[in-house]
């Protein structure tokens, strides 16, 4: 990413001070869609996941499931209820500046966090017997599958494609501000929806823990 400042707007989008105004043009920006520096970190985390599953020991699986599950929940809630509404109210040039710094990182963080949480959680459930249909809290476990299923479909079908598409649009020589606006709206809606579902996950997980 080269030094991009919020002053890097063209005269055409002078009206962009109004939060939801669509500027007539957006300057082309130079940044990495996938932050390459983050890939080794992802590789280390995924290797740790494979080792934990292969070892099938309680503590590494609990650590990965709880730590990454907490991160997933908090990021979704924060994106859906704090960052999303703030971005929705920002003038488009400022929103773009936030997007080119935030969204590439999200492209690496979210799939990693979700994969580790689910894979470690499944292995943990197998080890502890909580995924067995004979488990006394089985109905809550199935409820968690259903909520995670909804979140997965929204995240995979709407959130990730919008995330990648808005970044690719911003890298074009002449990005289309209306395309960016439309994709950002979709991203914020999907983040809000998954954030709401994360409240259900918090209820379910605490119910399972209490018994």
């Amino acid at each position: 990413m080269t030094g991009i400042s919020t002053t890097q707007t063209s005269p055409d989008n002078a009206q962009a001070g109004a939060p939801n105004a669509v500027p007539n043009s957006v300057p082309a920006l130079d940044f990495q869609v996938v932050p390459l520096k983050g890939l080794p970190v992802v590789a280390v985390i995924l290797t740790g996941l494979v080792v934990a599953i292969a070892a099938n020991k309680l503590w590494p699986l609990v650590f990965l499931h709880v730590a990454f599950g907490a991160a997933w929940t908090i990021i979704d809630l924060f994106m859906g209820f704090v960052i999303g509404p703030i971005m929705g109210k920002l003038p488009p040039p400022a929103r773009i500046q936030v997007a080119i710094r935030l969204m590439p990182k999200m492209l690496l963080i979210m799939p990693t966090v979700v994969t580790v949480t689910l894979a470690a959680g499944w292995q943990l459930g197998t080890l502890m017997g909580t995924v067995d249909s004979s488990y006394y809290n089985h109905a809550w476990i199935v409820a968690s599958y259903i909520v995670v299923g909804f979140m997965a479909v929204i995240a995979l079908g709407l959130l990730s494609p919008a995330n990648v598409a808005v970044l690719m649009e911003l890298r074009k020589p002449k990005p289309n501000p209306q395309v960016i606006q439309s994709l950002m709206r979709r991203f914020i809606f999907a983040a809000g929806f998954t954030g709401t579902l994360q409240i259900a996950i918090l209820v379910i997980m605490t119910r399972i823990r209490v018994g």
Partner: protein
Amino acid sequence: MTERTLPPVTQLGMASLALIVAGGIYLASYLPRQVPLMPAVVLLAASTVLLIVNLLLLGRVRDFAWTRFVAVGKWALLAYTVTAGLIEFAFLRDGMSGAPLIVLTLSIVVYAVHVPVLIAFTVARYD
């Protein structure tokens, strides 16, 4: 924004993903008991049909940004193949075998193909 007439790739893709998720939940909710596989097979078949229909509809679009579609799709396919491999590894580690393993493996294949298609389509449609 230039509006183009494009097939409902995102809608079909999400429906396809929802079907395999439903099949996975059905199988997982009965573990370790043996359950009739037919509902999961039907859901997987319907999901696969939607994937094929999606690809056929997309293949018929004229003046589509195929270069961009392939450029994005190949990297997305690599990323989702890695995550699919991790999920499959967890199933194998748990000693899953036989028909349930086949159904879940094919479901993972649909996931690993359809998600990159959705990502590549969403990028290429605005090119």
